[in-house]
């Protein structure tokens, strides 16, 4: 299978997609904490007053955005993932979730996307903390096309929409999966073993499959982590062994969310987790090294199978 790549980073494709929407809808605003992108520069030129750089004030950015949303505006907060989620968590909870206000966070830097920049830039616990909130949805796209949808920025969802983007030029995967929906994707190859993952690791896994042409497991890509789609249960029940791989701590992450879903529905499944190790979570290094140290690299996944 020939691998095709996107020509732009996820964020730039998103801003490309957003520009004509902003031309028609003057209520959409972009609020940043001094964070940029090439395509955002183009939007700024066109709409200088609608792109507001608030400086390094994540707490205030969330409160201001909630106030804007309260008065009918459609704020999109643009930030590195870990800064906007951890530093301003209480503002997200009280000003957005409790107030049920439609605010979008477009964040870049899922998991170890900023690998060499160290733990200050790693978003390896953001899903866990946001999962505690009501009125919150978490979208973790594994490729650009998954967020280029009007439904994501229609501001009908009364609460936080958290987009967790990766960096770099990713490969196109749309033709890889047999089943595609807004919430998850699925490819059935192996009848007994299912690997479930999200975001960048889906890129790694599919690349490995395509490179080696070895299909020793079926694959599920979770696009919307919260609320998790109950339909995944039907697929999980088809397999004897399920492995959840994530570039995130296990506690509160994808593994916890899926396990909780299965428990609530009295589904017993042979389910195991490959996630970040407490001993290696905060290490420095490139992404491959961090994956190896945390045993979420392809070799470790195949070993677990």
């Amino acid at each position: 299978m020939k691998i095709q790549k996107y020509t732009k980073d996820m964020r730039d494709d998103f801003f490309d997609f957003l520009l004509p929407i902003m031309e028609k809808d003057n209520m959409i605003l972009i609020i940043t904490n001094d964070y940029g992108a090439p395509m955002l520069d183009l939007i700024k030129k066109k709409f200088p007053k609608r792109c507001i750089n608030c400086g390094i004030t994540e707490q205030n950015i969330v409160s201001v955005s909630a106030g804007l949303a309260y008065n009918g505006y459609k704020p999109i907060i643009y930030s590195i993932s870990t800064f906007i989620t951890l530093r301003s968590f209480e503002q997200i909870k009280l000003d957005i979730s409790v107030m049920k206000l439609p605010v979008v966070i477009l964040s870049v830097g899922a998991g170890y996307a900023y690998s060499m920049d160290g733990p200050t830039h790693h978003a390896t616990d953001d899903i866990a903390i946001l999962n505690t909130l009501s009125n919150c949805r978490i979208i973790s796209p594994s490729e650009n096309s998954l967020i280029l949808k009007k439904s994501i920025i229609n501001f009908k969802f009364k609460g936080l929409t958290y987009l967790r983007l990766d960096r770099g030029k990713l490969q196109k995967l749309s033709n890889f999966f047999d089943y595609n929906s807004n919430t998850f994707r699925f490819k059935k190859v192996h009848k007994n073993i299912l690997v479930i993952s999200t975001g960048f690791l889906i890129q790694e896994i599919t690349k490995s499959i395509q490179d080696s042409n070895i299909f020793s497991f079926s694959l599920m890509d979770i696009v919307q982590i919260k609320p998790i789609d109950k339909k995944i249960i039907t697929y999980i029940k088809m397999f004897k062994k399920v492995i959840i791989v994530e570039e995130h701590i296990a506690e509160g992450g994808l593994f916890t969310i899926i396990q909780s879903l299965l428990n609530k529905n009295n589904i017993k499944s042979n389910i195991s987790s490959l996630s970040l190790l407490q001993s290696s979570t905060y290490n420095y290094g490139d992404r491959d090294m961090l994956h190896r140290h945390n045993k979420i690299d392809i070799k470790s996944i195949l070993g677990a199978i």
Partner: protein
Amino acid sequence: MNINSLKKKCQDLRLKNLDICYKSGGHISTCLSTVEILVGIYYSRVFKFNPKKPKDSNRDYFILSKGHGCEIVYLILADLGFYSNNYFNNNYRKNNFDFAGHINSKVNGVEFSSGSLGHGLGFGSGIALSNKFKKNNLKTIVLMGDAECTAGSVWEAANFCSFNNLNNILTVVDFNKIGATENISSFSDPKLLEKKWVSFGWNVINVEDGNDLNSLIKAYKKFVNNKNKPTVILANTIKGKGIKMLENDPIWHTKQIDNTNYEKALKDLQNSFK
């Protein structure tokens, strides 16, 4: 309303405040310090609202950032007809009702739920900015505490307001010099507060007696006429104002009025009217 009627309104509200806090609890001393601030806002025509249509698009916005001072706001909204006094009295701090012990936006006339400090000015800034975009003349008034001014998020918001020339926002600081457990001077120098706001680019109005209606109303008019910067009023109030036993004693931030002290508090309050 003339000034005497407004003073009478303050007295009535204080009595109701004592009564409700005696029956059901609440942060009475912080409410008592803000009575004139709130009566000045809601009864002197500087602030537009519509009890029959709380979300009227032509209303001004009031944000209580010090959410623990909610009882006096609930009482004023009842008095103005957002709901009845009976409805409030019967449902305050009751299960499954919205009159929570920290202000709740589910209540008619309340814009924002607060209780954790340092949120209201940022939220109010968003409203003020959106009103600038809409090119209307609607005002946003945020009431916060002086201890709240030690929160970093307040200064993030203060910087945002002045940088964006939000002259349509007014912050009133209930400057009673007392926090939840002790005097502000135990953890921050209150003498520096005015300089801080000035250095952040705000138009600062220092009201020496923040329990004096005339001074407050004059300050509100100055804000309305100000065309350049965001305005902050430092209202030097007395925590527990009107009940001598409570005045300036930090213990009453959380201590409850009970059978042993209610009569004394009531006499104090009645005497303060004379």
